């Protein structure tokens, strides 16, 4: 009786940590820029597809190795989206900004979902490596290697983000802008640059998360296209975007929430 419960708890924590990472990206964007990017989940999906494409290419790049290129491609996507769409809404009042970015994100999510559908079909995509099925066993509880490694990468990237925000000059500028963009602008901070960096960092956090995750789902439901919407929303609900300077708080409720819901879903085996 206790065995399965502990197992479920471990699985929940391992998945929940990854959700937490996604929430951090979103929370960073929302906290600093007040852009409510409801297409965040679709950006995660793009991260997932980038590593699937790398794996299915001629070179069979391992998802953990292609992480670098995945991050760079998501950085580019973030820059393009910011310059094309979001830069126009920087100077709006906060209420109008939240509403308009939300609507634009809503349209964007439809575009990205249908783009993914037509480019890569509605079929489930998976990455099956030689180590996909392996797990470490400790006291009878199994720790799937891929999940553990993904979580480790997630934690490292969280730490890196934390140090970036705390120790670098641009990190300081980001935190200042989050507190009060007008005051920050008066102090000579280039708001556009700060917004761009925050937005792009947020987008790239998605790459960390969904990239390696691909390897874990050996049965292959990595990039199920309806999922991103769900990720986006659950992340949104969990991350309140209150504390952009500290990236830890949003990760915690996300992880805990999924720890609780994870086992239920595992046991019932309910899709979606």
């Amino acid at each position: 009786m206790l065995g399965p419960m502990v197992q479920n708890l471990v699985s929940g924590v391992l998945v929940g940590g990854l959700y937490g990472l996604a929430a951090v990206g979103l929370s960073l964007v929302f906290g600093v820029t007040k852009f409510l990017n409801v297409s965040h989940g679709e950006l995660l999906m793009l991260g997932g597809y980038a590593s699937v494409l790398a794996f299915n290419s001629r070179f069979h790049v391992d998802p953990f190795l292609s992480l670098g290129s995945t991050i760079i491609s998501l950085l580019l996507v973030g820059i393009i989206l910011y310059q094309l769409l979001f830069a126009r809404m920087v100077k709006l009042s906060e209420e109008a900004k939240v509403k308009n970015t939300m609507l634009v994100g809503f349209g964007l999510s439809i575009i990205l979902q249908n783009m993914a559908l037509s480019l890569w079909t509605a079929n489930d995509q998976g990455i099956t490596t030689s180590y996909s099925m392996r797990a470490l066993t400790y006291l009878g509880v199994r720790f799937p290697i891929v999940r553990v490694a993904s979580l480790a990468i997630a934690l490292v990237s969280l730490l890196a983000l934390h140090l970036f925000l705390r120790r670098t000059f641009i990190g300081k500028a980001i935190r200042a802008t989050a507190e009060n963009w007008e005051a920050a602008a008066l102090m000579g901070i280039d708001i556009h640059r700060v917004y761009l960096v925050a937005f792009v960092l947020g987008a790239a956090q998605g790459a960390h998360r969904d990239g390696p995750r691909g390897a874990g789902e050996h049965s292959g439901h990595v990039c199920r296209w309806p999922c991103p919407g769900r990720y986006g929303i659950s992340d949104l609900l969990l991350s309140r975007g209150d504390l952009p300077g500290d990236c830890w708080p949003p990760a915690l409720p996300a992880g805990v929430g999924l720890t609780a819901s994870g086992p239920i879903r595992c046991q019932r085996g309910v899709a979606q």
Partner: protein
Amino acid sequence: VNRKQVGLIALLIILLALLVLFPRMVKNKTSTVNLAILVLLHVTLASSWNILGGYTGQTNLGHAAFFGLGTLATRLLWMRGWSIFPSLLAGGGVAVALALLIGIPAFRLRGAYFAIGTLALGQVLYATVGNVLYGAAGLPAQYLATYDLVPRYYLCAALAVLTVGTTYVLVNSRLGLGMMAVREGEDAAESLGVSALRHKLLALCASALFAGLAGGAFAYYHVSYYYQFPFAPVWSLDSVTMAYIGGTGTIIGPIIGAVFFVVVREILSLKLGELHLMVFGVLFILVVLFLPGGIVQAWKRVQRLVGRRSASKEVQAAR
């Protein structure tokens, strides 16, 4: 009553007569009436979204939840042997019940939380209905034997007229003024004694009622569909898109938006298949960024431009 108003009323009467006579006038009956039913259903959806989204300023990204619940209640009761009108009313009633359930807690929060909450609500119901009621809702043989398109058409037409008419009466009443005051500034409205919560709730209930009734009409009209289908996010997106393309916060905007949307969608889906959704995604973003008042705003701009030009010509002629 001045001349302009008489003209407007005459135009309205002509439009209503056209709406009534339409099924007798068309040649290629089945496909044309089907298209008309789709247009009218979408007019109802867009106008009902507009009551809350356009006039009260609360963005509902899960309109499909109310629409879907309406289809579900109506279809299940109707299949149990209820006649269609009580089933329809039940569909609307269930949607209002959900609106109250969601609205009371959600409207205590401000800003984007209502939008996020409704977005999640739509997804939750979509997934849940898909898991619980998998399979299709097909009509049994005795229902099919008496199936006739014309009464469905009149139901949808009546519903569209009722929705637009109610919106008109509502926004010209004290309650409607309160709703618009809440949209322009909650604090200012509250300071004048307008209860933001009550007005937002009222708008949500009216919006949900007509969405639920539209769902009931859909359940009455469609022969076979998956129970999950009316809950699909695309219904929410369509409602928002139509209202924005036409012009939110106006009576005529959602009607224009719905006609434009359905006709363009039918043409595009013939040519592009599933890709037509991407086209509407792009169009929606463009409208939000560059033309927040939709077609109505564009029309007003053109009018003003033409007016200015003719005015300057008059000035020149006078010289």
